[in-house]
């Protein structure tokens, strides 16, 4: 198509712009579908917690950390991310079941991902970060701190041990840890 006059140019450009708006709408529709129908949403629970008194809080006291099955059957792993380690360093979770990971930081910004999965969140002091997931494969997965948190950042690593659902055996308190067999 030749553009002999400025009007031709404008017409061609407008046609292209409309086509591109169409492309953008398709992308937007895909994102909306993923969000509303298959629940692919970023972790966004705005839940406050005081980093200065984290260790005295009900939820993130040392005795309450790690994996625990609640009375209602909900499986929750609570982990503190602190310079330069995770407490606990290893958590056990069952494959094929919906689990919740909850993180808090008493000091600086951290972040986590679990290798081979879409589990990913920042851990910002002042807030509880929460991720829901269902692990598909069993084995030991890496859970590094993925946000710069100081000179020891590179050493900050934890393990997520995903076990078959029939080998996930909580004790009388509903607890499961990497140490128990």
């Amino acid at each position: 198509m030749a553009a002999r006059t400025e009007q031709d140019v404008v017409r061609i450009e407008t046609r292209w712009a409309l086509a591109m708006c169409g492309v953008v709408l398709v992308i937007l529709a895909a994102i909306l579908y993923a969000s509303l129908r298959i629940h692919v949403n970023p972790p966004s629970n705005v839940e406050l917690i005081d980093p200065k008194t984290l260790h005295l809080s009900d939820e993130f006291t040392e005795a309450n950390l790690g994996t625990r099955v609640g009375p209602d059957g909900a499986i929750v792993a609570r982990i503190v991310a602190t310079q330069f380690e995770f407490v606990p360093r290893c958590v056990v979770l069952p494959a094929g079941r919906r689990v919740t990971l909850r993180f808090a930081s008493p000091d600086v910004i951290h972040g986590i991902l679990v290798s081979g999965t879409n589990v990913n969140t920042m851990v910002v002091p002042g807030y509880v970060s929460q991720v829901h997931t269902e692990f598909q494969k069993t084995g030991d997965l890496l859970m590094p701190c993925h946000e710069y948190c100081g000179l020891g950042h590179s050493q900050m690593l934890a393990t997520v041990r995903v076990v078959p659902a029939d080998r996930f055996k909580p004790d009388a308190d509903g607890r499961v840890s990497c140490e128990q067999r």
Partner: protein
Amino acid sequence: MNSARRLALANFWVAFAAFGIAAVLGVWQMWARSPWQAPLHTPSNYFLSVTAHGVSMAYVLSTFFIMGFGYVVAETALKRPVPGIRWGWIAFWMATAGVLIADLAIFSGNASVLYTFYPPMTASVWFYIGLVLVVAGSWIWCVQMLVAMAQWKRANPGQPVPLAMFATVANAVLWLWTTVGVAAELLFQIIPMALGLVETIDVGLSRTLFSWTLHAIVYFWLIPAYIAFYTMAPQAAGGRLFSDTMGRLSFVLFLIYSLPVGLHHLFMDPEHAAGFKFLQSFLTILVTVPTLLTVFTISASMEIAGRMRGGKGWFGWIRALPWERPMVLATGLSFFMLWFGGGGGLINMSYGMNAMVHNTSWVTAHFHLIYGGTVVLMYFAIAYEVWPALTGRRFASNKPLRQQLWWWTIGMMVMTLPWHYLGLEGQWRRVAQFDYSDPHIAEWGPWVLVSLAGGVLLLLSALRFIVNLLSLHWRAPGEAPPPLEFARPAHEVTQVPAVLNGFSLWNLLVLILMAAAYGFPIGHALVERAPAAIVHRMGG
């Protein structure tokens, strides 16, 4: 040499000196993360180096280059003296002093907080003061650009502002808006913390304020590349710009949509709810539109040039283009990298999909490909285009220039393709070293070494670039180079709608969009104060 040109050269050389140093540091960092033992490798040296690399590339190279290029455009496109040259020198020395102060803090090991700060970690206050001086210097430049355009409009009532200058002023306006977020974070939160006036900081708020700046700053870096696409590449190819109006519209769209989108850097953060994350994800998709318009307009402009040179058929015009000219070659290579970098960017901004790649090497690959690749390659091409005019000397041959551009492109692709792959494999960012005895991490080793090879090629290209520029200063002046000219549109524009000849309406729109996108996230953080974190001081 007139004073605007001397001022431009001074700015360019600070930019490129920082670039050269940062390129060396970048390769060392990749070596440190590889399975091979690097010299001087300690975590403190590594994070010092990452901080210096980020500050030099993201703040010094970009800001000084943009200021230098702005003076060249203002003088060449408006054909008038640049107003307030003395202010320009004040801006230059202020910003240069800022760089030296910040670098002293970094290299003394007291500022290893990376260029994105990460409070409650706290660097020496001199680090932040240095960066504030750089930004304050650039604000003076913004005012100079605004005044230059206003003076020209007064002298040429009703005339369309030349596209190159219109875009430069769009960038100055964008930068004034962009820096509001980081300035608020530094002045109200971080500097009081670094001075010891407060012992705690609201981290969620500081991340939100920084996000205001964090995305639009990338468009501040990018706009000079787009100015070159629209006004220099068609000229170098011997053709015309397909559509002047589309150029204006694209720059206006960049101004509007690059600002209310910063929360997409915080998709994985706990301090914002899903609604505002989704809203800003939606606005982020819209910022792809000006890029997609540009790809079309520039391809059409190049087609005009190719056909004017005798190219026939559907693709014959591509072969007919003068690829031996650095600006034409760079535009082609830059578009090639934009294809990969832009595609990766679409994935990053896709709301839920971001979880797959957030804080992995994928993201590092994305912004190196877009900024280091697409944009910095055009900085090289712009430098090659303006250096003869600035020094009054011609390049003896374009061959070394073309080689340098090819090395840079190949190096960038070889470096970033493995990073994308490693990111999908879960390789995380910002670590000084990997434990290659872990079997999962050991599999990454060979790909890390491939990317290191790309990095070495980038370093060679960076050094070659500096030598190419220096060679022109050292040459004996011969035949005077042709004057610098910007591309004319295919159909001469005699008048443009007033809204596309100024920024009042667009500023109002930015204000409305920013209020919609950031009003609640910031307002909420100010009203419902989150528990603050205790300050952590780095270094002595």
